[in-house]
């Protein structure tokens, strides 16, 4: 059960030609796949592509109606390998994953696929997790396209361009017998916009039909002597075919300058950066809101292969051209330099010299880069923001932002455009002071996360045993590297937590801890980490966090999911899997039972049994559990059933404000508040109402011997008759004693 349900939204996929759809990018891409007659789809979840997998999952019924087969692949390698169905048959297939991490995993299969080539269109949708909010290493997918000779699409980030590119991506793939990658940046995946739908198309050939009539062509198999032929084909046949197709269908776009513009300059850009570049030009007064620019643009919706002829033609006769290419190395700029040199075109080429060499190209860096370019090449073009506005023959007062006083709107616009810095009074607080006022807020474990207690236990054990080397993995559990836990030395890739610790397979004072999540475990950890550790008689401790879902990517189901899932085989325990590859020392623990988790780790550290010590720490992702349980609880209360809700509470008088509990938890709902005692200034711990009553606070208070301030409040709704009877007796006795206490205090009352 995924974090977000698209059950309602997927009905949009049934819409027909001419209807305007208002949807998120990902849903648009799914619709475009169905409009293109795709025969099979698959992939592996991971932001920003998770929702695509969720949408497909929730659209199972619609896919079946169209005879489209959907696989929830075990990994990106599995997904890429699945595209093999397009090698022999004219089947259109599409897979999706997070890049570049997923592309790394898939590259073995992708390289094989690209070598033999495809008959049916093969599309790889790569969700580019680069820049703000990214959780992975910063690299470019571009290199994969170049090394394997696949084509890379980078369409303009509006839904019409994105959905169109799905369709011509398939066509390009078929025209050149080459797999095509469609690159979507993170915000493009989640952009909510609109496009006009077309009718869905049933695949002309379904996978069932293909399977029933097998075809074979040994020249497509990566085996000598065909491999040598494949390389020749790539260069002599497929590349020219691709270039011809791109040119003939004008996949790349030329934007002529508007009236009064300067055609001596030009900008070459990746399609995905188009909107940001236009905004930068607009702020500089060099373009209007509709994209009409003073500077001609060559927009590369296909960023690989390069269409040399188009680029040379664009540059010829211009004084200078700026290449806007995100990320590093600057493959495109290098290539263009070579093209111009070979063609003896003397246009000055700027790029990374004026724009940042690395990092996401958001509005600010693009604005500054373009400004430098114009300043250098045609400074007279700058400072004409007002002229620009006057040139627009539009009267659209209703688009002017009206602030507070509609009659003053006109003046307010003038004030905006001239953008005078506000005079600085002496008593203004300098903005730099914010540096001390704005602490970082990295992502972390959610309220009640079942993974948090594991790291509380490890941290407590560290107090006893000294510091451990912790090999971390990809997944929510990676948040252990942040305060307050500060656990984790490296992370080498999904399912590789165990593998990354393999060098430390020697005897030492303390064993290492190698972490993995259930997601990573099934992705490849079973073999890469556990199998390898068993085989090499690794003596260290291996932690597998089993929270019933691939939680970090949005709660998708996996082999060991606890619940029955339609269309999938779940409930396959991790314990059986590791025992199946020969692990002997295996323990399963409840994550919230901190004392047992701690004791189990201690035992794993000390036992004389050889081989990997595997601890499977189980409990359900609380986000998902809440979604599952909340409606049930609500219904039970409505029916008048007895329901006990638990949540924690801190006695603010008993708490001394040392925050030792927070340093063992970091739970967002275990926070602080004003000390109720006016003599004390340190804030006291406080559990806010988001508390899910997971029990960690109490378990920590016990196992770390913290303080007597923690209380679990059990709130009984719809109490039974027995409850009420006992409650009355208790209140009678307790009330009597409390009155006695109060009487003693009253003797000295103020």
């Amino acid at each position, binding site marked *: 059960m995924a974090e977000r349900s698209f059950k309602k939204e997927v009905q949009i996929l049934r819409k027909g030609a001419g209807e305007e759809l208002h949807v998120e990018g990902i849903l648009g891409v799914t619709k475009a796949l169905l409009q293109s007659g795709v025969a099979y789809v698959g992939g592996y979840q991971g932001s920003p592509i998770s929702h695509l997998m969720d949408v497909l999952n929730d659209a199972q019924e619609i896919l079946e109606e169209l005879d489209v087969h959907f696989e929830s692949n075990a990994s990106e390698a599995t997904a890429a390998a699945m595209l093999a169905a397009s090698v022999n048959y004219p089947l259109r297939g599409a897979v999706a994953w997070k890049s570049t991490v997923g592309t790394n995993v898939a590259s073995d299969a992708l390289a094989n696929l690209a070598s033999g080539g495809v008959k049916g269109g093969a599309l790889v949708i790569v969700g580019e997790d680069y820049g703000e909010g990214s959780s992975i290493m910063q690299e470019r997918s571009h290199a994969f396209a170049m090394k394997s000779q696949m084509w890379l699409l980078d369409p303009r980030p509006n839904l019409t361009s994105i959905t169109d590119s799905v369709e011509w991506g398939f066509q390009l793939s078929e025209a050149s017998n080459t797999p095509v990658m469609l690159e979507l940046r993170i915000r493009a995946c989640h952009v909510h*916009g609109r496009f006009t739908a077309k009718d869905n198309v049933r695949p002309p050939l379904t996978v069932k039909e293909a399977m029933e009539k097998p075809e074979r062509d040994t020249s497509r198999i990566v085996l000598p002597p065909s491999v040598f032929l494949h390389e020749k084909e790539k260069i002599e046949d497929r590349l020219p075919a691709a270039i011809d197709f791109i040119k003939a269908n004008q996949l790349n776009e030329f934007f002529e300058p508007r009236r009064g513009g300067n055609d001596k300059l030009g900008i070459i850009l990746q399609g995905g950066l188009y909107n940001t570049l236009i905004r930068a030009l607009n702020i500089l007064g060099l373009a209007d809101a509709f994209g009409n620019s003073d500077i001609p643009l060559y927009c590369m919706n296909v960023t690989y292969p390069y269409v040399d002829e188009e680029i040379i033609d664009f540059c010829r006769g211009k004084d200078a051209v700026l290449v806007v290419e995100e990320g590093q190395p600057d493959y495109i700029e290098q290539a263009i330099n070579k093209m111009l040199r070979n063609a003896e075109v003397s246009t000055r080429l700027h790029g990374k010299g004026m724009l940042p060499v690395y990092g996401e190209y958001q509005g600010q860096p693009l604005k500054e880069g373009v400004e430098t370019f114009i300043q250098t090449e045609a400074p007279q073009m700058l400072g004409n923001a007002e002229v620009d506005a006057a040139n627009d023959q539009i009267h659209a007062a209703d688009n002017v932002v009206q602030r507070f006083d509609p009659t003053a709107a006109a003046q307010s*616009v003038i004030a905006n455009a001239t*953008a005078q810095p506000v005079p600085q009074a002496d008593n203004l607080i300098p903005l730099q002071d914010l540096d001390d006022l704005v602490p970082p807020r990295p992502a972390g474990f*959610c309220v009640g996360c079942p993974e948090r207690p594991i790291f509380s236990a490890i941290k407590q054990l560290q107090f006893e045993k000294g510091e451990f080397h912790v090999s971390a993995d990809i997944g929510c559990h990676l948040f252990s590297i942040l305060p307050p836990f500060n656990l984790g030395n490296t992370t080498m890739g999904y399912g590789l937590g165990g593998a990354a610790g393999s060098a430390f397979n020697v005897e030492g004072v303390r064993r290492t801890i190698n972490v993995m999540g259930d997601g990573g475990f099934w992705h490849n950890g079973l073999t890469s980490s556990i199998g390898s550790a068993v085989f090499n008689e690794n003596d260290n401790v291996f932690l597998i966090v089993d929270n019933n879902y691939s939680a970090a990517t949005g709660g998708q189901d996996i082999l060991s999911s606890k619940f029955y899932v339609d269309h999938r085989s779940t409930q396959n325990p991790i314990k059986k899997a590791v025992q199946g590859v020969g692990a002997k020392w295996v323990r399963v623990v409840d994550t919230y039972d901190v004392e047992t988790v701690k004791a189990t780790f201690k035992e794993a550290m000390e036992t004389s049994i050889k081989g990997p010590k595997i601890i499977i720490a189980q409990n359900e992702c609380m986000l998902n559990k809440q979604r599952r349980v909340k409606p049930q609880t609500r219904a039970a209360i409505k029916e008048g059933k007895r329901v006990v809700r638990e949540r924690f509470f801190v006695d603010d008088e008993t708490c001394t404000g040392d925050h030792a509990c927070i340093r063992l938890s970091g739970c967002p709902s275990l926070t602080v508040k004003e000390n109720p005692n006016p003599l004390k200034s340190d804030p006291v711990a406080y559990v806010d109402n988001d508390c899910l009553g997971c029990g960690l606070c109490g378990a920590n208070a016990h196992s770390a011997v913290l*303080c007597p301030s923690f209380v679990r409040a059990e709130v009984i709704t719809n109490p039974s008759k027995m409850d009420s009877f006992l409650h009355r007796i208790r209140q009678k006795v307790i009330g009597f004693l409390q009155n006695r206490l109060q009487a003693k205090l009253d003797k000295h009352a103020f």
Partner: protein
Amino acid sequence: MSEQAVKPITIAISAMGGQGGGVLSNWIRDLAETNGYVAQSTSVPGVAQRTGATIYYLELFSQSAMAQTNQEPVLAMTPVPGDVDVLIAAELVEAGRALQRGFVSPDRTTLIATTHRSYTVSERQQKGNGLVDSDKIVAIAEQQSKRLIAFDMNQLAIENHSVISSALFGALAASEALPFNKAQFEAAIEAGGVAVASSLAAFNAAYQKGQGEEPQSATNVGDDQVFSDLPEQVKSESAKVLLQRVCDDVPEGSRTLVFEAVKQLVDYQDPQYAHQYLDRLKEVLELDSSAKDYMLSNELAKQLALWMAFQDTIRVAEQKIRADRFEKIRREVKASDEQMVYPVEFLHPRVEEICDSMPKALGEWALNNRMARACISALFSHGRKLQSAKLSGFLQLYMLASFKSGRRKTLRYFHENNHIEAWLDRIKQAVARDYDTAVEIAQCQNLIKGYSDTHARGYENFNAIMDEVDTWLASGEGSCAARIAKLRKAALSGEDRSAFEAELALAS
């Protein structure tokens, strides 16, 4: 230049993952799309949002402007500094972060910021008060924005059984920064179809408040402490004597503080204990002077009271069984009259705490006798869950609390009292040499807090500093205040003692 410049309206939402920023974007998008605008929104979901800071971004564009040119606008995916019309911050430090990133400009941006705080881990995990100055963020927000609407929108949302997105939406409507009227805003909530009634209630409350003139400042935790005024009359004879003594012995400016301390000590032990406190304070007051504004005495009045009311097992038990505490828990968990609330106390006294509660001789014997110690350890090796509102749990705590009258005979009292006497002695000696050092020594009491290991480590640090003080007292050097201040800071920073030990190793 005229109003011909056609531009999109740009709106950034600065929030934390899980705060409902997505719901708010959806409302704004629906609002725009049903009222003559096209709208585009973007976000960065995924792991980045798991409680971390994130930005949602929207652009709205007039359909009539599109119709006149017959062109589609090009809408951007990320905010550009200096190009944001409305910034909505769902948490105060996130407003600060947006200011830091330049998304708020004085000539253009309407800033809608809630003043509530959701503290970051780095602030919460400090041993003392690690919270940032909220007021200052509001002040900077006011000076940097074209218009600021700031108040605690979270509180308003809670009061109306809703979430912050509804309150933010209400404040946005009140700001009139968007070309839509209130009814159109409300229609967007209704169209959303989820928790409409409570969302509308929070929306309306925020709309009302947002129309108020002044942005409201944030309340800082740990700011100036306010003590209640001295009463004209008190209810008991013993209290009357104490009140009179406070008026006679204590300079006027310190009376409310000292009276508060006296009340707490009577509650903690008895009037006699409060007199003992006043005796001790008086000795220092006599060495202090009005020229120094009685800084030392004020500090000592606070620290001495806190120390004398040390949290032993007797005190904890007494706090747990009081009637008003049960009421407090009911309020905090928002229990209705029909619901029952049973607190489960998580207690884990160690052998040290058990022996501390015994009469001095017995406690010392038990601590030092291997057999006795082992027996007690075995009994208390695991934490206990005590049901304090059920009979057996309540009675256990009640019995423990009733040892209060014998507190002065306990081992714990003996130890604490000796430490207090020695500390007071150092202060009295120091004040003759260097006033600031005396104040610093007084403040060191704050290092001793927490329970069990935390408490023991606090004591270790305190004692190490007192050793330094003794060396200084014997040496005849100038001031030791700066040195103590540094050590105190080091003792409160970091998790282990490494920072403190490093500071201590530096030659004084």
